[in-house]
């Protein structure tokens, strides 16, 4: 359950919801069919998406050890799963708590920063091809967070998702 819904439930016995809170709630409920659709797409096409990204990566970085490439690809599979769940629940805590702090550090432990950055680029490119712009907008904030780019910065950097 996302943090907004949690707070709404916790307050149930004290008061009725304010119009603004109801608006947020219905906004989330209305977006659920789209969120479910994006989630299904990512679930059903996970291997296809990742295989495309892996192929591009191998071609782009043939000098890198296969072991490191595989490690980064596995982490990216995990990243997209966390982002998919975060998008579905409209809650970025799962990405923040389980992914960001941990994998940011692991990236420097294994020295895979350059591989990861390239992977992110190909993944974003592939997702933009597969998802509609409306769908991509639902997923984008989570991806930006997971990839270490806060939304404002990424918007300024322009062609991240082109």
């Amino acid at each position, binding site marked *: 359950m996302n943090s907004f819904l949690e707070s709404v439930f916790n307050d149930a016995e004290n008061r009725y919801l304010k119009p603004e809170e109801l608006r947020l709630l219905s906004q989330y409920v209305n977006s659920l069919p789209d969120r479910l659709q994006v989630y299904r797409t990512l679930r059903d096409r996970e291997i296809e998406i990742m*295989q495309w990204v892996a192929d591009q990566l191998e071609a782009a970085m043939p000098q890198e050890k*296969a072991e490191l490439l595989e490690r980064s*690809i596995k*982490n990216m*599979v995990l990243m997209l799963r966390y982002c998919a769940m975060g998008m579905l629940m409209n809650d970025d*805590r799962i990405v923040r708590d389980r*992914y960001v702090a941990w994998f940011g550090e692991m990236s420097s432990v*294994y020295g895979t920063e350059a591989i990861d950055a390239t992977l992110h680029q190909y993944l974003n490119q592939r997702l933009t091809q597969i998802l509609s712009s409306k769908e991509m907008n639902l997923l984008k904030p989570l991806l930006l967070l997971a990839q270490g780019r806060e939304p404002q910065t990424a918007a300024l950097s322009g062609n991240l998702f082109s």
Partner: protein
Amino acid sequence: MISVADLISHAPLPGNYFAPDVYVRGDLEMGLLENRQSDRLLALPETLLQAIYAGLEEETGQAARLVLFNCGRWWGKSFYTRFWEQLSHHYEISPGEMPMAEFLRCLQQCWTTHGWGKLGLDQNYQNRGFLLIKIWNSPFARHAPQWEYPVCFLEAGILSSFFSQLTGRELHCIQISCESLGADCNRFVLGLPKRIEPAETMVTNFDHDAIMQQLCQ
């Protein structure tokens, strides 16, 4: 060529095993706390911690420090075994094959998730044969009585045992700064017993920097 289907099916994806939201589980009806392997976790109430210090001081006087340190060593021994098993099980490789930085990052996360504070490693003295460990927000310091010397003997015992097993050499651990005495964090120096022994007598008179300087001379 890398096959993603094989990668996903043959090996687990190595997530953060000790992430608090998945590692600690509670069953309200049974009144149990468990970890993600369904091993029981024990919650230590503040009163119990305070009582352990007070009871030991009453019963054993000065020897309370030694008792706590030895308890810590036993605790550390089992903790090391469990930690090693959990890592092997989750990451499907021997922790001995992990990069040291990843192993230590797991230890830091494990430490925090168990509520023992935040642990950090200072490797500046490594080439002199010492490892400095810092712990912030230790509950063992917060609930200790006001002694005139550092109080975290339990943690010193855990750390000496943990790192002795990790390195395969008998290491001793002495606390050289303590939150209970107003320090910003608890500092523990680890090294061969003979080399760090002089610190024992310095802890009440010198600050941690001075102690490290003298040890390194």
